[in-house]
């Protein structure tokens, strides 16, 4: 190899290296960018067809950019995100549970996109509670992705068999459940209301319905309120329902509840709208159950009303360290825009990020969307994620359900811990 050839080779290698590292600026000159956009989405959030659609549209505009969509699991995502953000190359775009955003925004991990807000489709009609979860100190750190709320999924055939109707109050829920237990309870695996012990987001509506809360804020100080008289009333209600109607694992979590429901020994279960799809999945569930499924909002203790539910959901954030800000914003804009949000509703059965699209839901998903009308949110503090990770409320429920601790004692311990963590 002569020296000229060598020089040429080295130069080419450097050029390739620079391209591979995404050294080419990615602003404005549409279509010429190269590089890789890494996206983390959560397990079960967008159907594969929607992800493929977004990538196809994106690829049409930026043929030389590779998009890597990696699916993460909820159970260990905070640990993975912490590690990723601590490193120098976190993913460019990530789906964040709405209760987690404050932590990452406060730590400076997410890009402030306030100035770009108007460039996102429907940004004027985004769901208020998701927009709030994206907002930290008046700045916007993410784009609302979708919302979800819980209602009770039930088996219409079992209800008919026991001669009961959809309950209209909490007392009624108990009566209906007792009748179901009387009719089917000889099956030792039957639960009228399947309720695993760590399922905090299913217990929260009962606390809120009696006027209780997780924590209250005065000034900059938080105070755990899960031990207030009203909260304890709600917890008592849950405890009574669970001990009379549930044979689920009192120390277990809700991760396997759809598979359990699909096996046919459960009449009612508190679940997200998209879980209908998991229950009737041909591989992991039982498709023949679909015509036998119904849903109704968790009833309030005031007859005829419904209990407030936790409005869960996800947002799409862009990491502050991303080298591809413009590309990342464009990808997020596609998934958060009209076309794919509509698909998220019709295929995925979730509540879309904009009020202009909610009317697209029909069937069971519409019931879940309606249940979200009276919704509540967790304390919006950067430290809330730690309350979740420390399993404070889950541990409290487990000790209440297993009888290891009384409601006043367990809730006071939890309230102290919440106060301590939130004031961090």
């Amino acid at each position, binding site marked *: 190899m002569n020296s000229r050839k060598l020089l040429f080779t080295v130069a080419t290698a450097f050029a390739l290296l620079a391209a591979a590292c995404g050294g080419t600026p990615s602003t404005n000159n549409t279509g010429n960018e190269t590089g890789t956009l890494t996206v983390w989405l959560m397990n079960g959030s967008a159907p594969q067809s929607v992800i493929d659609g977004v990538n196809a549209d994106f690829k049409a505009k930026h043929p030389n950019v590779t998009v890597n969509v990696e699916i993460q699991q909820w159970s260990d995502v905070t640990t993975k995100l912490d590690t990723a953000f601590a490193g120098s190359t976190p993913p460019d775009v990530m789906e964040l549970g709405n209760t987690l955003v404050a932590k990452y925004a406060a730590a400076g991990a997410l890009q402030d996109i306030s100035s770009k807000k108007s460039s996102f489709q429907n940004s004027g009609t985004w769901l208020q509670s998701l927009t709030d979860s994206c907002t930290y100190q008046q700045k916007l750190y993410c784009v609302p992705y979708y919302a979800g709320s819980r209602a009770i999924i039930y088996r219409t055939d079992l209800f008919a068999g026991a001669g009961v109707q959809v309950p209209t109050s909490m007392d009624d829920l108990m009566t209906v459940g007792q009748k179901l237990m009387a009719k089917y309870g000889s099956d030792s695996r039957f639960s009228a209301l399947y309720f695993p012990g760590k399922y905090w987001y299913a217990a929260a509506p009962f606390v809120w319905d009696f006027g209780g809360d997780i924590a209250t804020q005065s000034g900059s100080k938080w105070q755990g309120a899960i031990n207030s008289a009203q909260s304890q009333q709600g917890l008592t209600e849950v405890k009574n329902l669970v001990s009379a109607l549930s044979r689920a694992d009192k*120390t277990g979590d809700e991760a396997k509840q759809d598979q359990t429901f699909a096996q046919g020994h459960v009449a009612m279960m508190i679940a997200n709208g998209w879980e209908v799809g998991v229950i009737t999945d041909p591989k992991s569930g039982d498709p023949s159950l679909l015509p036998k499924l119904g849903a109704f909002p968790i009833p309030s203790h005031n007859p005829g009303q419904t209990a407030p539910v936790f409005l869960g959901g996800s947002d799409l954030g862009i990491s502050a360290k991303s080298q591809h800000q413009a590309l990342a914003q464009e990808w997020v804009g596609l998934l958060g825009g009209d076309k794919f949000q509509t698909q998220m509703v019709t295929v995925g059965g979730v509540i879309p990020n904009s009020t202009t699209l909610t009317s697209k839901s029909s069937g069971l998903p519409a019931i879940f969307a309606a249940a979200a009308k009276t919704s509540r949110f967790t304390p919006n503090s950067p430290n809330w994620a*730690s309350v979740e990770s420390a399993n404070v409320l889950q541990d409290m429920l487990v000790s209440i359900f297993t009888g290891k601790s009384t409601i006043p004692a367990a809730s006071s311990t939890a309230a102290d811990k919440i106060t301590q963590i939130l004031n961090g």
Partner: protein
Amino acid sequence: MGVAGDARGRASSGLHLEAGPWRQALARRALPYALIAPALIVIVAVLGYPLVNLVWISTQKYGFRELIQHQGVFIGLQNFATILTDPQFLYVIRTSLIFTAVNVGLSMFLATLIALLLERVSRPVRILLSAGLVFVWATPVIPAVNLWQWMFDYEFGVVNWLLTRFGAGDYIHHNWFENPVQGFAVITIIVVWGAIPFLALTLYAGLTQVPRELVEAAEIDGARPWQVFRNVTLPIVRPLFIILFSLSTIWDFGVFNQVWVLLNQRPNKDYFLIAVYSFQESFRVSKYGLGAASAVVMVAILAVVSIFYIRETIRLTNEELR
């Protein structure tokens, strides 16, 4: 002095035929250090650096914000003050100590029995038994714990089914993890199960070193089997026992995988052993300073145990050289 000394003498005289006496002396002193330097550098890099860093982080306020900025705030011993006055941490320490004592005791006891058994059974049975032990030893921890988890499952577990089937009572929907004593019993079974192969095979290897004629002499003098074991076998394998005992203590005090996987990565606080506590504080609650402080406490406790191990190793090495 044995072989090592001769080799050293030869090496230094060969290397410096024409050097002056002081240079010779220097080289003789430097050579051993030069020889262990590569190993030392590796040890410092993979053990020393993380350890120093751990101690350093334990003296800082180091949360998620600090993690992203790679910059903590020095607060002296405040993290230690916080955990050492936290009733939960004291509970964790107590649980870990009891857990370690029970697990080390059980694994050592059962491993000794199996080692003695291996010595007495016929060759084919011994091969079969050793193969079984090696298979257990070769099973990766995570899949193994998952299998145990299935067996003890609340809804579908074979253990509940078997117990009910064979008339031990109604174990349908029996929750093994509702009562921490039962839960720890299950964890103990898994830990001991995983620890026995190494301990039993090592002890068996040790037992084969006990001279046959000593045992026979004792038996002729009328010693009973227990007396033979206590007065002949045990003194000979005692150093090995101490080493295995120290290693077991170190492993069982640091148990993490079994608890973490068995309880679906969300163990409730009854099940916090010290390693679980440290992980939870660091990687779940993002209080890396507190997590590091509890890890330092753990290292300190283990250092005490290690002293026995190191002392015994040094004693053994000296005996061999003598």
